[in-house]
């Protein structure tokens, strides 16, 4: 079958995923104009990772405003997972339902809003916010009613989600977020752009205050506000750990329930990370170590957040920890093997081989920083001590060989000495490395 014409965008000399960001932004805007075309939808799906990275200015429309409170929770896969995320299909169905089922007066208001929205600039966030705030509460009520009735009423269920019954939970989740859309939007505007790597005291205070003032005693509202921020964080479990310590004006049992629900979203994300880490067996040690480090830090934070949660979630956390420990052990063993095979290399070895052994050694040092949390501390320390001992022995032999060496050999021995200095430093003994460096420099450079 021949691909539709627009899909050929990926077969061009400079395909869409290889052009400059500036050009990509322009094309994204053009695609946006024609977004109702089915083939454009397909292209948008294909370029979604790039859209997420580049984040071009999107042309506002009512559907986009409707999505704002839950946009960061959307996922492409269908429902079925209890992770708090919303399938895109559920969001699309909910939007179509709202457009169809709005009463006459609400439909008129939507038309007026559409006209006003067209007059606003793409970057006029305050103007768009006014329209969005008007839209969310009635839409939440309409969807809430429909989701409740859909359980027993087949006709409503069909209108709302068609045959995909599992999408109902997604609609319910949207209702929770739309109900606190104003608060979520306010927080998003006041906090750093996504992904948020950390928050200062004033930003944490703002979240605390917004949640405490906005939950009205309803756990769902507190949950939705916190969820919207949690998924914007680079370290979501760490965020939950910190915010949990603040007074959210929630009774303790409710607080525990809210954080258990939030924990499920975080644990599902971590489960994906642990699987990805375990699946890697290549030599890309820096990326693997970073992943392991993030995972272990998040696990430690999650452990504190979910200390008093339900047994199922606790078990999920225990399983996750075991998976992380296995993945980290494999990583440490592979890195150690790579370093040991690299120790035999002289400085004249191919640069790529020298780099590979340095990279593996750096990975071990990075693992050292979180080894204690995954019961690997003594293993990693032992490996590094052995490496240091072997390097010291090697330097003694090199110094001994130097006086009798011929000029050509001498250069090679000196380079090997500096290589040992470098490896000693990377192994975690910079002072000994520097002492040897000074000795070596007296006879070399």
């Amino acid at each position: 079958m021949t691909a539709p014409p627009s899909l050929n965008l990926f077969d061009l000399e400079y395909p869409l995923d290889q052009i400059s960001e500036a050009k990509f932004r322009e094309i994204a805007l053009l695609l946006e104009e024609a977004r109702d075309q089915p083939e454009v939808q397909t292209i948008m799906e294909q370029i979604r990772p790039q859209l997420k990275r580049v984040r071009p200015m999107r042309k506002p429309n009512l559907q986009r405003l409707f999505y704002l409170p839950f946009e960061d929770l959307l996922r492409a896969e269908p429902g079925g997972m209890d992770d708090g995320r919303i399938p895109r299909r559920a969001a699309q169905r909910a939007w179509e339902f709202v457009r169809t089922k709005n009463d006459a007066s609400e439909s008129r208001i939507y038309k007026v809003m559409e006209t006003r929205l067209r007059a606003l600039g793409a970057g006029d966030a305050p103007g768009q916010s006014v329209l969005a705030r008007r839209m969310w509460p009635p839409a939440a009520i309409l969807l809430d009613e429909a989701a409740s009735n859909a359980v027993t009423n087949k006709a409503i269920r069909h209108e709302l989600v068609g045959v995909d019954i599992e999408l109902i939970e997604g609609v319910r989740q949207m209702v929770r977020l739309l109900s606190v859309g104003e608060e979520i939007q306010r927080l998003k505007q006041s906090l750093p752009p996504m992904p948020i790597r950390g928050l200062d005291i004033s930003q944490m205070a703002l979240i605390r205050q917004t949640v405490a003032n906005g939950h009205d005693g309803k756990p769902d509202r507190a949950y939705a506000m916190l969820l919207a921020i949690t998924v914007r964080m680079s370290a979501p479990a760490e965020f939950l750990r910190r915010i949990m310590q603040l007074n959210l004006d929630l009774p303790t049992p409710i607080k525990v329930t809210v954080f258990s629900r939030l924990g499920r979203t975080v644990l599902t994300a971590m489960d994906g990370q642990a699987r990805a880490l375990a699946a890697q067996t290549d030599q890309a040690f820096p990326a693997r170590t970073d992943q392991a480090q993030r995972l272990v830090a998040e696990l430690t934070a999650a452990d504190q957040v979910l200390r008093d949660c339900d047994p199922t979630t606790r078990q999920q956390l225990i399983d996750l920890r075991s998976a992380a420990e296995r993945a980290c052990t494999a990583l440490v063993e592979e890195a150690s093997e790579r370093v040991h095979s690299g120790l035999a290399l002289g400085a004249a070895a191919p640069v790529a081989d020298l780099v590979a052994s340095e990279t593996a050694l750096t990975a071990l040092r990075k693992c050292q920083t979180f080894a204690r949390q995954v019961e690997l501390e003594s293993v990693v320390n032992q490996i590094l001590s052995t490496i240091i001992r072997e390097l010291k022995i090697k330097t003694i032999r090199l110094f001994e060989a130097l006086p009798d060496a011929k000029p050509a050999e001498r250069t090679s021995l000196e380079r090997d000495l500096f290589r040992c200095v470098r490896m000693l430093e990377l192994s975690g003994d910079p002072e000994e490395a520097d002492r040897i460096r000074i000795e070596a420099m007296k006879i070399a450079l």
Partner: protein
Amino acid sequence: MSGLSGGALLPATFEERGAIVAFTTPALSLARVRRDARQRLILMMPNFGGTEGAFIVPWNGVAEVTTMSVHDRALHEAIETTESVTPDQVRGCTLRIGQSGLAGPVVAEASRLALDSDRRKQIELHFLLVVALLNSLNVPSEELLTLKANQEAWRLKVKALLTQAGQRIGVEINDLQTRIAALARVLLPLGLSSGRQDDRLRGLLHGFADFRDTITEWSASEKSDLAPFARFAGMVADDTLKSADGLFGQLDAAMRDLASVVRDWNVQAKAVVGLAGKLCWLLDGWDFIFVFWDQVQNDPIEIQREAVGRIIRVLPLIPRNEIDRSSDALEQQQLLLQGRQIQSNQDWRRGRSDFDLVTRIEAAKARVLES
């Protein structure tokens, strides 16, 4: 010096701005070395510990304020021993220490190649200058092209031709040879406009437009407080490029009349040396900035923000006495940013930065040396 932003707080001269030292310790990355009023070496660490402006330390006190990598200790010692304070001198130390492998095998390889390339280019430049001088004085030089450069016959032929040339402009052969050798040394990082390939600093000019355009474009789509700072970096790059273009124009014009430069040595060569020195100072540090920026082009936005923050802190602003013309837009932007601190984003992921940063800095160092 209490700050590097704002015209009044700019250093007065390039020497006061100092020469970039390619340390690999993150806290010292792109710190500058210069002499103080008593001619002692000092180190200026930009934004050390998150403070505004630069932190100044006596050269022998650097180890007391931060833990240096073993490579940096060696480089620190080399600079102190040789009293290197110009970009060219510091580069010499950097290559010498770099080739030891203390900053990793990639830097070692790049340093060795750079030293080889410098030696080759110097010979090539020397030859080009000889031929250019002979041509400008209508002394036939075709025969040189048929002889091998390392043969005795070639050396004798060069000497004979230069003697002829010297007689035409009234300069002794020994002086002529010394002057050409001196010019080749001075022009080594810059090359000649008639050269077959761009030399190190002339080649660097290509990077300015790209950096200016990409960082300005980045600032336009950036949502954080870094946007105006990134725009400013683009403006500074543009301003530096214009200044460099002007200086290269003057240098090339002066070198077109090579016979006059060699003849009126005390006047004309002084001007050439001055222009070459100014260009070396003007472009000092930009190679690292281009690489730092290029390294993060495909990275997540938070890494790009971190890189922009780092670039802004070490941006080589042109000293106030070295600017021939002033750009209103640049000054306005500078005033706008004066006193505003770059907000470093909170990061809860500790223990991550140093290993990664050192790796990134070493990779940048290798790429700079390779270029």
